[in-house]
């Protein structure tokens, strides 16, 4: 296990955190979906690399599921649904972008401190990967909490699940990861479809013009 392999694992985990921050920054729906696809792609790369480093071939399957299902199928499906149902495509924040990003940094700091203090005896590099995974989970929750748009909440939930997958693969020896991944993805698919059918039907009953944003040139 050379240092370069660990560095690449860290780099991929850090890129996942970076992708979560990019999702936090987006305020347009299509861009959010694209960044989510990137997020899932980076997850696939990270899981694939862990499969190579740990010599655990079943993780290749998890990586493939992440790539096909989460990076390609779900974003394309959401894209189509949004276009067909004509949902308004701007995401409103509860608090401003600056404060949201600062809260994100605070959450990353918190997860680093928690992970590195709670597990003093464990393998140093696995701890840092776990810290990154916890950051991704917390950032996913932050996306869900600070966005007023149903689709962005779904995306936040999915990115949270990506973080859990990262944690599971980082800690060695979890043989059911493949099955859990498949189950989770099916569950998410049903949640996505369910949320859409119910929420959007409500929205369609009301006057959709009001849901369109007013001209947001001057916010003050």
């Amino acid at each position, binding site marked *: 296990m050379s240092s370069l392999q660990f560095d690449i694992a860290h780099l991929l985990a850090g890129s996942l955190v970076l992708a979560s921050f990019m999702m936090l920054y987006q305020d347009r729906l299509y861009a959010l979906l694209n960044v989510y696809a990137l997020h899932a792609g980076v997850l696939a790369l990270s899981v694939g690399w862990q499969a190579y480093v740990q010599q655990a071939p079943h993780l290749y399957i998890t990586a493939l599921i992440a790539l096909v299902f989460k990076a390609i199928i779900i974003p394309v499906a959401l894209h189509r649904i949004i276009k067909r149902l004509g949902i308004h495509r701007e995401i409103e924040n509860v608090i*401003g972008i*600056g*404060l949201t990003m600062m809260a994100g940094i605070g959450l990353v*700091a918190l997860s680093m*401190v928690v992970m590195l*203090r709670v597990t003093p005896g464990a393998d140093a590099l696995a701890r840092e990967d776990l810290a990154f995974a916890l950051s991704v989970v917390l950032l996913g929750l932050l996306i869900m909490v600070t966005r007023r748009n149903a689709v962005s909440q779904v995306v936040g939930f999915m990115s949270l699940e990506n973080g859990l997958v990262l944690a599971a693969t980082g800690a060695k020896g979890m043989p059911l990861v493949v099955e859990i991944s498949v189950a989770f993805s099916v569950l998410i698919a049903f949640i996505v479809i369910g949320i859409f059918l119910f929420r959007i039907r409500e929205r369609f009953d009301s006057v959709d013009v009001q849901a369109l944003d007013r001209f947001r040139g*001057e*916010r*003050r």
Partner: protein
Amino acid sequence: MIAVALWSVAALLALAPAGVVLSTRPRGSIILYGGCLVATSTLCVTALSDLLFFPHLAPSATLPIGLPWLGAHFRLDALSAFFLVVVNLGGAAASLFALGYSRHEDSPGRVLPFYPAYLAAMNVVVLANDAFSFLVAWEFMSLTSWAMAVSHHRDPENVRAGYVYILMASFGTLALLLAFGLLASGAGYDFDAIRASHPSAALTGTVVILVLLGAGSKAGLVPLHAWLPLAHPAAPSHVSALMSGVMTKVAVYGFVRIVFDLVPEPVWWWSMVVLLVGGPTATLGVLYALMQRDIKRVLAYSTIENIGIIFTGLGLALAFKAEGLDWVAALAFTAAMLHVFNHALFKSLLFFGAGAVLGATGERDMEKLGGLIHRMPKTAFAMLVGCVAISALPPFNGFVSEWLTFQAILLSPQLPSWGLKLVIPAVGGLLALAAAFAAACFVKLYGISFLGRPRSDVAASAHETDRFSLTAMFALAAFCLIAGILPGLFIDALAPVSKDMVGNIMPHQVGLQWLTIVPIAESRSSYNGLLVFLFAALCGTAAATAIHRLASDRLRRAPAWDCGYPDADPAIQYSASSFSQPIRRVFGSVIFGAREIGEMPPPSSPLPARLQVELHDLIWDGLYAPIAKAIGFATDRINILQFLSIRRYLTLVFVALVVLLLVVAL
């Protein structure tokens, strides 16, 4: 040495009552300020020679005044010598400035008696070696500066400023009184006895918090800063310079003396508190400064920012000292002390410039000034030096102390505490933000007041100030440049101070090649102000000569680009609030609740459009106003006691007597 110092202080105290008489004479203020200049210069030279040549001597003296069993103890160790240099350099510059500026003073009788007393009080605070003299001198300092702040008493704003000031000053003194009381509980009031005592950790923790409240409110730490932007501008300009440039440093002296010297080994969480207060102070101070249009208020808020930077350096020094990394503590401490010196220099210079502008135009509001670089060229040049220095730009001195603070932050990963590991990068980010905002603030100050076209008649007809003011300003500007180019000299002069306070010193700077400064080791980082300045000067002159010889040196004048609308009114220029509008929109909406309300009339209406900007001081609304309301409520209730009948008063006396008897019985 200390005898000379004490005699000079006595001379200043003697000038104070003389000021009452001199204020009625025609040239009396010249004589008074001249006398102050001589006394402060003597003190400055004495202290400087003590710091440079006999730093470890620490002579002390005891005078039989004050409390009968205590007397008044004075001591001139390295820390006191350094702060005496800062106080008296500022005092001498202010006295020199006042020689010329005092002709603008309408009622000298309200200022002249208090000025030498103020200088004397600040010197005694720095020299004091026992808690009683310290506190008496501290309170005297507050009172004399309050008297001068309300000297223009016809303006109701000044009266309110004085009221808030005296309130906060009393609060500060109360906190310090409690702190000294706790420290003296084991040992008595004498500082030497306090140094030798061993108080418990809980006691020292409480003392540090109280000192932070007491000295911090005088220095201007957020949220105890509210009096500073009201009181500092209200005073006459040379007194404002002393209050901002020097009195805040005396407050820093009080903090350093108690927390680094009187109290034994520090604990890590003290530094956490100091850092958590210092970092936001720096950023909030300069953000407030960006929203102001009164020149002196901008400078007062900028003082708050610089105090935040100084306390951040002190917090870092405490953190390193608590961990035993005293060589890094020396770096952080020296950076803070160097910033104390630098800030005294350029803040005094900026206030002198503001005073010159006020004297020449009668205006403090930037939105009525403009174009002063043509009418007051020498003042404008000195103010430019001050603005560049305070924005921490090379080759001036502000950059050196900021650079040293950043180097100390870069060494912080060695600290083991997790809390500090998270707080220090955040504070570093806040400091970097504060530096960038400071540059923006002073571009605005200089650009709106001195550049452009005059926005009012008084600005168009201003005249240059007198020689004394100009000499004071240019002397300070020269010091700013020298401290920026030859910082090694100043760092080495501070070595005995850092040795006394944190136990170690920075590497010896003067012997290094080409007068570079090296904070830790040459392989790690170094900075050479002199060479950077020379290179830049060389490149600039080479470019100028080459272009003028080889290309063209012709020049002609023409009207400015007016987009087809000739003879534009000066009012189309950017004003102070329009210059800060982008920053106000980005940061102000959160921190000040800034709102812009625009009213546009319909297209064919001749009515004017209106733009209204609303800012809320959230700290005032959230902290001071509720406390004031609560006190008002409580006192309204208690006020009933004023209007009781005789029978009720007798009842009170009777009940008190019965209670006391019960206490005695049980």
